[in-house]
């Protein structure tokens, strides 16, 4: 793009969202220009990330900034395949979500839209900076900034419920990161003498098996954004946010920043080989497996659609953690794939939930009988997203699960196989009835509103159609994701 070098592209990608955030308030009074700024920033970000793709696949690892702050603390960025995959997903979906947001925020006449778009842009900037962090400190810095910039979005409504949700969100995420993640980073840097992400890890031979196990625990629970049980409460609580926030942040950017960070720490700080050799990671298989099953069971009992999606997210995030914990190269590729696959499918589901709320003002599943006839596009997309959650072939969700199962067989992890099969059944059990009722059931006789609405505003329908198409496309054309994940595994120190 414009003949920029990869270093320049990296700088553009890092700066554009923040520049957008700085410009948005200037057009407070001209909403059309303000939204145009968001869209342009999102497009430029996406293009510059795309521009990085070919160089990185060719083995180039562009770096930016190398600012020494204190002993062990350096602010630095470096692109590697895994981070690029995450940045690609987050920036691509930012464009779609911006289109969706414009429809949603205007149709629902939400207050304080300017600060909404500012926070959104800052959050995206933080997500990209997390993706490209070169070391633990840089990752931690933007991890915290991401929490802080999304807090106003969670509490956006400003009523008692939203403030309470925001409080839980802030305390859980800041709390876990301060209590566990920061000490883990301090300890890592003291033990290894560096906090850099290096292929093969930096802790080999630097710590005893027990210390490795404790550190893994501190990271797994300290990265609260990954919503490992029992530290998952913030995610359902954050559902008080406007739906586009839930869609991009709590299905994509924030939670994916969580599992991405865990993946990055395991691959580049511990080193899968070191961790496997220490034998200290088996507990994570059990905790992640339990989270998958328990969260699915809780999802079964939900009537609020967004709550159900939240618990489904908790469960799906733990797939990624489970795949990481198996520590086989193939399952780690599966984890990377699932980050992308779950992102496009879950955002589709949230978009559908928001479009139902906007058009029909419905939030409970029990009210949604027959809604598929009035909102065929929305519910069609919902169906694709749901199938992907279950992991049916020809949807993106299948890929990650396939890699995970292969890894589980290789590693002899029969527990993992059982968990994946069991949770697939549970996923089907809570998603399929929604789809079935939406299309096959008659609306309740007394539900007069059911006759009064059609589809949601077109930007919203366009956005969810796009992501549904993406869910299918990712299955048939998984080239980029596969290449990036294999390039991640192939990286040598």
């Amino acid at each position, binding site marked *: 793009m414009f003949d920029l070098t990869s270093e320049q592209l990296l700088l553009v990608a890092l700066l554009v969202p923040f520049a957008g955030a700085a410009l948005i308030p200037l057009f407070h009074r001209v909403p059309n220009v303000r939204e145009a700024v968001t869209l342009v920033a999102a497009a430029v970000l996406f293009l510059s990330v795309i521009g990085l793709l070919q160089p990185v696949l060719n083995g180039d690892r562009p770096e930016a900034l190398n*600012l020494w*702050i*204190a*002993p*062990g*603390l350096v*602010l630095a960025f470096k692109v590697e395949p895994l981070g690029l995959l995450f940045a690609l997903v987050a920036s691509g979906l930012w464009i779609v979500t911006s289109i969706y947001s414009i429809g949603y925020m205007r149709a629902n006449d939400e207050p304080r839209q300017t600060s909404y778009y500012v926070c959104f842009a800052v959050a995206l900037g933080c997500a990209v900076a997390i993706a490209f962090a070169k070391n633990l*400190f840089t990752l*931690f*810095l933007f991890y*915290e*900034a991401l929490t*802080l910039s999304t807090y*106003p979005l969670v*509490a956006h409504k*400003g009523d008692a419920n*939203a*403030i309470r949700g*925001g*409080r839980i969100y*802030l*305390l859980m995420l*800041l*709390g876990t990161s*301060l*209590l566990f993640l*920061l*000490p883990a980073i*301090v*300890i890592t840097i*003291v033990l290894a003498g560096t906090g850099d992400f290096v292929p093969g890890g930096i802790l080999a031979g630097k710590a005893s098996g027990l210390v490795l196990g404790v550190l893994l625990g501190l990271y797994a629970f300290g990265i609260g954004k990954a919503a490992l049980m029992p530290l998952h409460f913030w995610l359902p609580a954050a559902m008080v946010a406007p739906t586009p926030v839930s869609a991009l942040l709590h299905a994509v950017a924030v939670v994916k920043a969580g599992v991405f960070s865990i993946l990055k720490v395991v691959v580049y700080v511990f080193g899968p080989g070191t961790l496997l050799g220490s034998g200290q990671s088996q507990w994570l298989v059990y905790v992640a497996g339990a989270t998958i099953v328990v969260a699915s069971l809780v999802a079964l009992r939900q009537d609020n659609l967004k709550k159900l999606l939240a618990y489904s997210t908790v469960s799906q995030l733990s797939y990624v953690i489970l795949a990481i914990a198996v520590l086989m190269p193939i399952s780690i590729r599966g984890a990377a794939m699932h980050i992308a696959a779950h992102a496009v499918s879950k955002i589709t589901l949230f978009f559908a939930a928001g479009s139902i709320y906007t058009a029909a003002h419905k939030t409970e599943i029990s009210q949604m009988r027959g809604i598929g006839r009035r909102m065929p596009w929305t519910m069609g997309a919902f169906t694709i997203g749901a199938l992907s959650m279950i992991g049916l072939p020809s949807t993106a969700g299948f890929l990650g699960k396939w890699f995970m199962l292969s890894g589980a067989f290789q590693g002899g992890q029969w527990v993992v196989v059982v968990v994946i099969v069991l949770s697939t059944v549970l996923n089907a059990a809570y998603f399929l009835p929604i789809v079935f009722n939406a299309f096959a059931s008659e609306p309740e006789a007394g539900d007069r509103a059911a006759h009064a609405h059609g589809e949601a505003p077109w930007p919203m329908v366009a956005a969810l159609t796009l992501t549904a198409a993406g869910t299918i496309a990712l299955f048939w054309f998984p080239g980029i994701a596969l290449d990036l994940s294999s390039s991640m595994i192939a990286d040598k120190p």
Partner: protein
Amino acid sequence: MRDILPQLPALQVVVPLVGAVLTAFVRRGIFAWALAALATFLSAAIAAGLLWQVLATGPISYRLGGWAPPWGIEYRVDVLNAFVLLLVSGVSTVMMPFARRSVAFEIEGDRQAWFYTMYLLCLAGLLGIAITGDAFNAFVFMEVSSLATYVLIAMGRDRRALLAAYQYLILGTIGATLYVIGVGLLYLVTGTLNIVDLGARLGAASAEQMRPILAALAFITVGISLKLALFPLHLWLPNAYAYAPSFATAFLAATATKVAVYLLLRFLFPVFSLAIGPVALQILHMLLLLSLAAMFVASILAVYEQNVKRMLAYSSVAQIGYITFGISLANQYGLTGGIVHLFNHAVMKGAMFLALGALFYRVRSVRLADLAGVGRQMPLTSAAFVVGGLGLIGTPGTAGFISKWYLALGAIDRGWWPLVFLLVASSLIAVVYVGRFVEVAYFRPVSEACKDARDPPLNMLIPILLLGAATIYFGIETELSAGVASQAADALLRGAK
């Protein structure tokens, strides 16, 4: 110019002192302010010159009246106190533009000149404590600054300010008395008041001299601890900060306790650890326990405060705990963390107290309930307040994180890993009290009191924003803060060996 350079140490104290005398003759508040601003600015310039000189050529010794130390009074400037001098005068300079309107708003016209006189006296006293190399001279300056402080506090609008000033008067006097008793004992044992000389002679003290030395140590430590509001000797502080005029609170919070901490460092390291290694270690352990208590108890008390000024006051007690925590680790990283937190806390708390002063200027209240919705009414002021708050929490990217990072490294260096967890756990309490302000200011409907509030005029706003920006700047660029602090820590530890 060349002739002035050697005289800088004396001028450091003389300039604000002369300024104080001159302002006493002025009647109009604006002229008094201009004089005070000029004197403050000159002090900062002198301090900057001293720090530059010290970094370039090593410690400076200045003989007052031409008498050679240890008989005469020596002003001794090394990296540590040059740093403290610049901190005190620099932060005051940034705050001066704010003072004009805030003081005019809170203090009656005919008393404004007195206010500035007292402010300059206090500044002269604080700079004096920091620059002198003489233990008794430090006491004299301590009294100068304390007496001025009592008056500054008593000038608060609220009638409870009188009581607060009285409380501080009593406790402050007790502190100063204990200190001077300790210094007296040391003089009896060693026959010297010069701090460097004192250190050398205590090193040669015989066994039977240990008892008075230990007693002196106890008196001095407790006396200074009262001054620096070490938990549980902090009882005077919340009321004093809460009811003093806004500018006085910001100034005192950023400078006064910091100078007391400096004095403690001076005595603990070169003077005492030479003579009594094992006992010094016990004192450090006790200091560690009290610091931890301050970090937790005072933070929790801050959470339950409805008056934001008192909330910040309790938070200051907690933050002083972080500073003494670093001192008690007594290693390179720990001391660096403690000393850099002197600086970082002055910047962050300065930003917050100034912002609060601006809120009071517009809303006429600092009660949490009255500040509902102020975040949208006064966006820049509130943003600076929140940034300062993020610094208190120790969010990465702010100055507070740098302090805590060094403290954590120091704790690990000692092998005290659990302290790292206590350190981060206490920051979590700061999330709660800063979060309370955020919720009220940004998510509650606008209260009656701040319906018409908007950001204050530029001369108030700019200092607030400067300190807010500095909170972030010193979280990224640490050459001037942690770099100098690390040199100071190194010098202290080498002196102690």
